[in-house]
């Protein structure tokens, strides 16, 4: 006769613990402010020429959170704005910033040599690393990430060598295990980026 209440109490306790655990888990996983992929997939790996002169493999950064952007050094507006935001986010991260890497892949290999990429990125943050390669290599990387790129846009008042390119302006977020987790659209704030990097670093 005394077993039933004991069993009922046990079941109730187990249910409460389960619910409590679920609530705690949900509360402990804040959402990204960036666009989030569900389920995430492995970030397509690539091997390109790094702005530091050595080979740059994305998978080399396992253990860190990577912000992966695409752009070019002659970009008049979008790229400098994005890079300034990433530099600001890295400063806000303070000590945690040592586990945050910014990789910027050029869409303009014709003009963006490793040296030019290095000096351009250093103006924002000396730890930012650029990547370039052959047009075919870069096209494959863009395809793997769904990056769009226009043909060269010539401006009448400028020499032909000062062409512009229209390209995807979002920044991809790769977590410590190499999963492509999110995409931060252009226009987000450094605070948003800092928030998401902290979320990804906490896992």
């Amino acid at each position, binding site marked *: 006769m005394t077993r039933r209440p004991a069993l009922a109490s046990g079941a109730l306790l187990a249910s409460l613990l389960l619910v409590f655990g679920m609530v705690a888990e949900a509360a402990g996983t804040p959402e990204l402010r960036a*666009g*989030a992929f569900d389920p995430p997939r492995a970030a397509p790996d690539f091997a390109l020429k790094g702005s530091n002169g050595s080979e740059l493999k994305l998978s080399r950064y396992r253990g860190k959170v990577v912000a992966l952007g695409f752009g070019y050094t002659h970009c008049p507006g979008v790229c400098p704005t994005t890079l300034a935001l990433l530099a600001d986010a890295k400063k806000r991260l303070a000590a945690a910033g040592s586990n945050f890497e910014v990789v910027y892949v050029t869409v303009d290999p014709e003009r963006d040599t490793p040296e030019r990429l290095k000096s351009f990125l250093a103006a924002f943050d000396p730890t930012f690393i650029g990547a370039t390669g052959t047009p075919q290599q870069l096209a494959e990387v863009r395809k793997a990430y*769904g990056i*769009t790129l226009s043909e060269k846009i010539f401006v009448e008042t400028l020499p032909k060598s000062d062409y512009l390119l*229209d390209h995807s302006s979002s920044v991809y977020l790769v977590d410590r295990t190499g999963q492509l987790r999110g995409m931060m*659209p252009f226009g987000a704030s450094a605070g948003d980026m800092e928030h998401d990097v902290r979320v990804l670093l906490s896992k």
Partner: protein
Amino acid sequence: MTPSHRLRYVLAILAGIAVVGVPAWAAFAPVAADTREAVYEIPKGTFARRQAGAKFDLIPSEIRLTMGVKDVLVMKNHDDVPHLFGPVLIMPDQSFRLPFRKASTYLFTCPLHSSGLLTIVVEPEPELGWKRLRWRTAAAAQLAAAL
């Protein structure tokens, strides 16, 4: 009070509610929705249909959202191949959830449209009073038109 007087009395109260109560509710009631997600989906077989020559837009060239009501864009790919859906490459059976935190107009490159752009207009949460009344009236008109 005779029955006809009573009926008139009830009708007057109902008319009063209709004239004053409904607009007052529309102007001051909190805005809310069952879900804040605006969902767009790529159905299975889309790629095959396109290969067969069908021409259609996967996503409108302009999407309008409202802060606090519908401010999360969700794109789902149910097809068997990856699709560039607006600004993102979405794999089969993958979804992409993009929350907006600020009212603004967002432009994304999007090769699916002739303009090459996907415009997402995120409007501010309708303020109490006249703006909220106007917003609800427009939403009701849209719903009526859809029906």
